[in-house]
């Protein structure tokens, strides 16, 4: 079969798209994936050069509005309290992620039943557990089983990362306070694991792309397996419409190739995996007489309920070198002492505190983990006081869904091909603000216990829109959800969504393992029930 038709079309080659493409291809289903970006050339990653930190601030910044690469699309974030961070490449945002790899907890799927807020998911932790396990195997996970803070899970494939001095100091403080902590599950090789991949050498800036291929990204994990199983991946494909038949049923997609020529491909099933901004953007772009407000948008919920993990940050300055620039920047230990709802607090739900290491010289000076080093006469003394002597705790909170937080199409802004750009509208509610305040107080207490000589809190990290979720939510009720529990659109069952858009609620933990487990579960269901893939059968059954 040529390029004009495929059984399943996947749009987006990131965390969810790669997982679903691999699983379908291994089941003998013809899969084609369209990816806007290209393959990362690991011989060219900036961490080999003296200007590596400059690249972090410019060409490799996680915010596409700062990076401004030709492959990116702009995002209007003027009305957004948190700025968007995402990447367009084979591997998607796993190219620049920190690879912190926690699972959601069982309570995260039952927030309405347990705490009376938001909505329950139509699926449970138990439904996802075998897919979490399978995903761990493919991505490769380093960690330590036996955490009393989470449901039992199999022995991790690899031992935990080295803690480093900062984590050792903070672990001792947590112990003295009686607060629970545990070494983080991370998608980073601490021993040899996976074909063609190396072992972490603790260089630090995982976000620049890992040339050792120790830090997992789906271009080095799922994609080689998927391509070997027969999946087809087309890069430089800027999809601008999901095409439908007169009944509104998706029949394929139209995209611009790298030369700007319009291409088309037919498909029996279309799977969107373009992240919590890109997916609703594409659905809203794909209007028809059946769906005048965007594809499968009978509910008007496409693009709405945008959730992040609003993040506060507290940094402790110590009177000893901690050498936090050594080791993966985002990963070491995790404290979930304040994760579950406590009626004694002035907020519902909770937060995690994740220890992050420290930056190189430029990152230290510019701020991020700590406030920007002041300019002027005292600048160099202020720099030397903090450089290499800090550790930081994120206060990663659970955002609750609100329809006013949303992604919509911008009326005038477009990408370089003239495709309307998305606009984010986002603000924090009082519950989240209270949670951040509590978290900053907790993290401050931990640094006091640890003996920090200065403690520097930040209420809200603005450049922290790394988790984009909720904009095409899952649910059993077709009147209040865009997709069902198997990620199929209620309004078109051969349309699926397998990225963070489907999250009903988001917990307070990094979402990638859950995105991938949900994608694998959706793929399994599609394999089991192939009627959508045989158009004749599908149409007669409809």
């Amino acid at each position, binding site marked *: 079969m040529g390029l004009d038709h495929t059984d399943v079309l996947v749009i987006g080659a990131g965390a969810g798209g790669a997982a679903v493409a691999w699983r379908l291809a291994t089941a003998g289903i013809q899969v084609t994936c369209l990816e806007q970006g290209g393959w990362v050339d690991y011989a060219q*990653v900036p*961490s*080999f*050069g*003296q200007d*590596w930190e*400059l690249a972090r*601030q*410019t*060409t490799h910044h996680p915010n596409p509005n700062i990076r*401004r690469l030709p492959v990116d699309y702009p995002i209007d974030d003027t009305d957004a309290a948190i700025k968007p961070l995402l990447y367009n490449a084979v591997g998607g945002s796993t190219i620049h992620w920190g690879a912190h790899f926690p699972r959601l*907890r*069982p*309570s995260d*799927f*039952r927030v309405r*039943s*347990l705490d009376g807020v938001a909505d329950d998911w139509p699926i*449970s932790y138990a439904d996802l557990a075998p897919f979490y396990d399978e995903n761990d195997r493919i991505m490769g996970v380093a960690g*330590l089983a036996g*955490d*009393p*803070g*989470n449901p039992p899970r199999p022995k991790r494939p690899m*031992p*935990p*990362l*080295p*803690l480093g001095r900062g984590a050792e100091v903070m*672990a001792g403080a*947590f*112990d003295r306070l009686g607060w*629970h902590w*545990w*070494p983080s599950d991370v998608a980073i090789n*601490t021993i040899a694991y996976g074909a063609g991949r190396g072992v*972490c*050498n*603790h*260089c*630090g800036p995982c976000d620049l792309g890992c*040339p050792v291929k120790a830090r997992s990204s789906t271009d080095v994990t799922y994609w080689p397996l998927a391509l070997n199983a027969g999946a087809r991946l087309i890069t430089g494909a800027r999809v601008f419409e999901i095409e439908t038949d007169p009944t509104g049923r998706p029949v394929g997609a139209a995209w611009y190739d790298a030369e700007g020529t319009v291409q088309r491909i037919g498909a029996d099933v279309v799977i969107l995996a373009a992240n919590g901004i890109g997916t609703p953007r594409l659905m809203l772009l794909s209007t028809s007489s059946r769906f005048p407000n965007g594809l499968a948008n009978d509910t008007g919920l496409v693009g709405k309920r945008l959730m992040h993990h609003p993040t506060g940050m507290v940094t402790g300055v110590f009177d000893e*070198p901690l050498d936090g*620039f*050594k080791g993966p920047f985002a990963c070491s230990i995790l404290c*979930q002492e304040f*994760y*579950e709802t406590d009626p004694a607090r002035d907020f519902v739900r909770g937060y995690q505190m994740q220890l992050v290491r420290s930056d190189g*010289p*430029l990152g230290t*000076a*510019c701020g991020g983990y700590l406030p*920007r*080093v002041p*300019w*002027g*006469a005292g*600048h*160099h003394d202020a720099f030397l006081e903090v*450089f290499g002597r800090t550790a930081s705790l994120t206060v990663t909170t659970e955002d609750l869904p609100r329809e006013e937080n949303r992604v919509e199409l911008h009326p005038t802004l477009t990408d370089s091909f003239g495709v309307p750009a998305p606009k984010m509208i986002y603000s924090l509610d009082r519950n989240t603000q209270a949670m951040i305040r509590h978290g900053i107080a907790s993290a401050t207490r931990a640094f006091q216990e640890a003996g920090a000589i200065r403690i520097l809190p930040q209420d809200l990290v603005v450049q922290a829109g790394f988790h984009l979720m909720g904009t095409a939510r899952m649910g059993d009720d077709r009147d209040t959800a865009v997709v069902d529990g198997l990620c199929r659109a209620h309004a078109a069952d051969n349309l699926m969504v397998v990225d963070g858009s489907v999250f009903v609620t988001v917990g307070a933990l990094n979402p990638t393992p859950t995105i991938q487990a949900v994608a694998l579960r959706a793929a399994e269901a599609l394999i089991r029930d192939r009627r959508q893939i045989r158009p004749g059968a599908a149409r007669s059954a409809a």
Partner: protein
Amino acid sequence: MITDSLRAALETLLPGDGRFPGAAAIDLVDRMSGIDHLHPAVAIASKHLPADMADRSASERTRLLQAWETDDPEGFGGFVIAAYSAYYTHPTVLAAIEAATGYAARPPQPAGYALAPFDDAVVAVPRRHGKRWRDT
């Protein structure tokens, strides 16, 4: 002349001392002009800075920058980030940091860094904690 104004502003932001070079000593204006991503911030600064910035006293230059920071924190912040971005990736500055702290003036790869392996004994206390997650 705007280049002189820019040079004076950068030297006010990042003056030299016995350990670190000042912005002028490493010709930070020239370095910034060679980095495309920094041009917008430089353009904003060029519009904002008075033409006679270089002729002002040190205290007056500081006051002018403080006033800009107060009036337009985002624009000024962009200029500071751009200045730091050029300064803290300059080989002379990195050598100064190495001399002051021992941090090696080399990129992270390919050498990486050595860290002691994880020691299971560190979880002795949390391992004894009771169950901390809710059943559903």
